[in-house]
């Protein structure tokens, strides 16, 4: 084969390789984006499932305290001492005057206590962070652990 022909063929081959590189990169990029997007949505869904249960308990407590002005409903989360590290979420009523003092005391026992409004406010922030990819390191971790850590961080922030 003539050297010129060889040169043309090699150039063509290089172009094909580059085209393929672009196609593969695009495919992988799209693939990763799609996978990440689905995983993020799945994580949000799971967290929403946990939150739905907490909010149900909140509503029950609020209906109980309807006429009691000295008390208010707080959400809580703590890690069980079992090996699987199961996280327990719930709602409880607390004395309005001493609630923050108790929250601080419970924080030392690794229990996160948050007022309902602060809890819901931070949920929106958490959803946005997950969907924007800021929390992609959490995609393959348990959603209840993420929610628990978020509640602890929110409590720490609120004290500052």
């Amino acid at each position, binding site marked *: 084969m003539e050297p010129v022909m060889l040169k043309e063929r*090699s150039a063509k081959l290089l172009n094909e390789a580059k085209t393929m590189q672009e196609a593969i990169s695009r495919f992988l990029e799209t693939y990763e984006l799609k996978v990440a997007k689905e995983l993020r949505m799945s994580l949000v869904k799971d967290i929403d499932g946990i939150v739905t249960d907490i909010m149900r308990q909140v509503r029950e407590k609020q209906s109980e305290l309807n006429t009691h002005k000295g008390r208010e409903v707080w959400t809580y989360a703590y890690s069980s001492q079992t090996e699987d590290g199961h996280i327990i979420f719930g709602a409880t009523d607390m004395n309005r005057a001493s609630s923050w003092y108790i929250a601080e005391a419970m924080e030392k026992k690794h229990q996160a206590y948050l007022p309902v409004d602060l809890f819901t406010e931070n949920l929106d922030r958490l959803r946005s962070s997950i969907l924007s990819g800021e929390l992609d390191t959490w995609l393959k971790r348990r959603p209840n652990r993420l929610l628990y850590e978020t509640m602890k961080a929110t409590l720490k922030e609120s004290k500052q």
Partner: protein
Amino acid sequence: MVRPLPPEIRRRIFETWLEGYNYRQISSQIGVSLGAITAIIEEERKKMSDIDELRELKLALKQANTTIPDALRGAGLIEKLNSLNIPPERLLSCITILDQYGERAVDALAHALRLQELETSLGKTYEQVVTELGEKARELQETTQRIGTLRKEEQSLTNSLRDLQRLKALWNKMSQHSLTISKLEEFMNRSLKLDELGFTPQAAEILASELAKRGLDPQKASTTLADIFLEYSSSYEAVAKLRGEKRRLEKEVEIGRDQLGGMVNQLEALKEQTSAHSHLVQKEEQLYGVKIKQLEDEYSLKRREIQALHGKSMKDLRQRYKEEKERLESEISKVEQTKREVQREVQNLEETRDVILKNLSEAEKILAEQEAKIKSRRPLATLATLASNPESAGEPEVALEPLLPLFAGLRNYVEANESRLRSPRTLRTHVDNLVDELSREVRVGTSHA
């Protein structure tokens, strides 16, 4: 009738009573009745009216622990003190003075008495007298010092006066000779100068009288003498110099003679050497002349031989050599041109080869990268495995992950093409559930709570 007591007992009773004992004590002591004792004492009282005073004195002496002789001596002392008008209370101080001054106490007492007399006569106390005396002593000391100073001044003035008298005498003498101070200074300077020159006044006088005898004026004579001496000294110096020069020249002549002797010897030796050399040179010159002649003859012979042998063929050879050289140069030029063309071709080919190799290398690199990328993410490989051999597709989170975008795409497709599908809602529900579950499996797999 009561028998009278013996005189010895009676005396004893009386003495005991005098000692100061009362009647009862005497009765128990001597064994005599109180009545007898009373009778004896009364009897003695009648004889001596002052026995009671005597008994009291005895008691007092006993209390004072002294004897009657001592008491008598004391009485004598008191009487003496009274005569000296010394009150007894001052006796102790007198004794102290005696202890202090010893044998000189009498002198001290005499001084004290004189001092007392002095105080009485001056009508002043001892302290006043001492103060006055101190002041007087100071005045006396000052006066003595003043006298000392005045005496020194007097001595100094006396010396000055003596100097002045001498000066006055000198002045009178100078006036007699009509001398002024400047003249005197001049004389002194001259005299000192003459001393320095070694002229005593006697020597000068002798010299002057000798000159006078010869009728010579001293001024002229001294000038003439000075000139003579000057001339003499310069002549003397010149002679000394000439002598030194003479000695130096003599030494140089001596050295020159020695050197000349050496040089003459050297010259003789050189002459001998030169004569020997010139003899040798003459011999060598003769030999070289013969050799040169031989060589010149040989050269001319050889030259004639060469000219005869190659006169014609050398010309032909030169012509042929020239033609051959031109032909070869032309061929070499052609070959070099071909060589350059070939080199260019080779260079082109090498460049092409480099481009091809570069392209291939780059393409190979890209393909390798893509292969690695595909292998590392394995979506396509996993899909292929799931299609061909699903059991060996690996862990769920790895095997199911490539399906997630596919089913998500399917969900979107169903949503976009509802009208074209037979049962889109059912399909959508199934796909949604499938995507949810797939996502959960991929996220947390079997560890999901």
